Each structure stands twice: as C-alpha cells, then as structure tokens.
C-alpha cells in the first residue's frame, strides 16, 4: 500500500506541539513580528508605557483591534466607543473559531483546554492549522495548533517590546516608518483578499467613508463607518447576487 503523501505524523502529541512551534518560524513569523514592531512603536508614540503595549498583546492578541484601541485612546474616546470599535473589529474571530474547532478537535482534552487554546486564534495560525491539521492524526491536531500559534504569540510579545525600544533609539525618520507599518500592513493583507464581492465593496466604502466621518466625529467615526459602509456593501452584493 502506498502511503498518502499528504498525510503527516509527528508520532505523539508533544512532538506535534514542538513540530508546530518549529514550523511557525518563517515568513509568517517575520511579517507578524514586523507588524508588532510597528505596534510597539505606535504605543511609544502615543505616549503609553511599554507595559501597556505588552499587556495589550498578551491579553488581546488581535492586532487590528489593538491598533484601533491605541488610536482611539489617544484621541480620548470614551470606553464605550473603544469597546464597540474593538468588538466590531474582532467579530471576524467568531466564524474563524467556529471553523477551526472541528479541525483541531480529536485529542482527549477536556473542554476548558479548547477555551484556553481559543485565545491564540488569529489569522496566521488559523490559516496554517486549517491547512495542516486535517493531514495529521486526530490526537496531534490540537497540539500542533497550540505549538504553532503559541510560538507566534511569544514572538509578538518580544516584537512589541523591541518596537517600543526602537521608536526611541532610532532616528525620527525610521520611527515614522515603524509607525507607518501598521496601516500599510493591513492595507496589503486586505488587498490580497478581494475575491469576494461583498468584502471588496466593504473595503472600498469603508475607506471612502472613514476620513470624512473622522472629521465629523473622531470618537464614533469607526463604528459608524463600519456599520453603514459594511451594511451597504452587504445589501448591494446580495441584490447583485439575487439578480444574476
């Protein structure tokens, strides 16, 4: 019998954990840490302490929401605004967690382990697990995901601290570049995801509505832009789908 080339086996769950940790090093780790360098610099330039940045990366670990939070905090937005903007930004984690769970379930782990592991669900590790985990024996899947994403998480903690330190140590021009990393990184991440009409429309409407709404209300502009532009994109693409 020929062995299926697409099947992989680390042997044991602890070996899969180490294997996942090893495989997290590469371009995804570099890009993610690069963007967290930018976050660390943003924290420094927003007159916050390094502990604030580290605390945010430790407890939230979803960069778009972290950047939105720091930006809103520095314009003095009230807590309710911050909470709604972060919640709307990160709602995408819900369908991601839902699709990931059946893929990594299978180890004889108690339920709470999945709730703990859920904290490290984010785009990079999610994409890797959705690709690799179905090829592994079921008892190694959770371990692989935890090893992969847990290592990314540790890397971003270090990158946050380094970015914070760099922002003060390098010439002002380089600090500009570090802070500029944040919008550029997200812009490109979204530019690679333009296949779905509704999401492409949402991006365009949001980008057009964002700046003028900010002039109208620095606090509420993000929440209002997200809800109106997002809903408009959703409705228009549904109508288009229904017609064709």
């Amino acid at each position: 019998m020929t062995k299926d080339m697409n099947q992989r086996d680390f042997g044991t769950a602890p070996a899969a954990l180490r294997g996942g940790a090893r495989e997290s090093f590469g371009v995804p780790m570099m890009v993610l840490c690069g963007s967290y360098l930018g976050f660390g610099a943003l924290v420094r330039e927003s007159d916050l302490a390094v502990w604030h940045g580290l605390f945010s990366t430790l407890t939230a670990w979803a960069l778009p929401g972290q950047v939105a939070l720091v930006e809103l905090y520095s314009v003095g937005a009230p807590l309710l605004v911050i909470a709604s903007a972060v919640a709307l930004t990160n709602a995408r984690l819900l369908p991601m967690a839902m699709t990931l769970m059946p893929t990594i379930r299978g180890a004889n782990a108690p339920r709470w382990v999945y709730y703990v592991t859920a904290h490290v669900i984010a785009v990079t590790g999610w994409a890797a697990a959705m690709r690799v985990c179905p090829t592994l024996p079921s008892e190694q899947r959770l371990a692989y995901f935890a090893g992969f994403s847990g290592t990314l998480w540790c890397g971003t903690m270090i990158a946050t601290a380094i970015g914070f330190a760099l922002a003060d140590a390098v010439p002002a021009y380089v600090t500009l570049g570090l802070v500029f990393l944040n919008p550029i990184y997200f812009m490109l991440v979204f530019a690679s995801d333009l296949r779905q009409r509704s999401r492409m429309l949402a991006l365009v409407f949001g980008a057009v509505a964002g700046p003028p709404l900010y002039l109208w209300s620095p606090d509420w502009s993000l929440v209002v832009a997200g809800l109106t532009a997002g809903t408009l994109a959703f409705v228009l693409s549904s109508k288009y789908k229904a017609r064709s």
Partner: protein
Amino acid sequence: MSEFWLPFAAMMVGAGATYVWRALGVALSGRVNPDSRAFEWIACVAYALLAALIARMIIFPIGPLAETYLADRLGAAVGALAIFFLTRNNLLAGVSVGTAALVALTWGRTIF
C-alpha cells in the same frame, strides 16, 4: 497615577471584547453554519471598519506621522500596493517598500 492605570482599564475592555468572540466561536462550533448570511454581514462590517481606520491613519494620522506630507504617505501607500501586486502578493516586499518609501521621501525633503 491614572495616566498609568487608565490605559490598562481600556485594554482590559479591549481584551474582553476580543476574547468573547473566540469563546463564543468554541461554544457555537458545530451548531451554526459559519457560511451563513449573518456571518457574511459581520465580515462586511469588520472589513469596512478596518478600511475606514486604515484610510484615516494614512490621510489624517495622529502622532509623528502627522508631520509628514500627505502626498508622501499616499505615494508610499500606492508604491506598497504596486510592489505587492507585482511580486504576486508578497507581503514582506510590499510592507518593506511602503515603509522605506515614506522614510526616504520624508528624509529627501530635508535635503532638497
């Protein structure tokens, strides 16, 4: 004192507003179809909000970027997109070129 502790409160709220989705996803997995229309709407709202934030950060930045020229920031952003698509979605190349371009353009203005 509150200058130090207040941001932690904001970040706790942010962490809660983030983890709740992950936990809900674990709880609901296998019970609701993640391809449903409701989730498509959620994705649209999240995408539009982030696009609004990105556009705002480039056009009306706060902090040190506010001292750079709008033309430089737009030029660097367009350059990043161009390199990104020319290199077939190479994130590292696009991000490097975009940030380096802004640094170079800003620095260049001090010389000429």
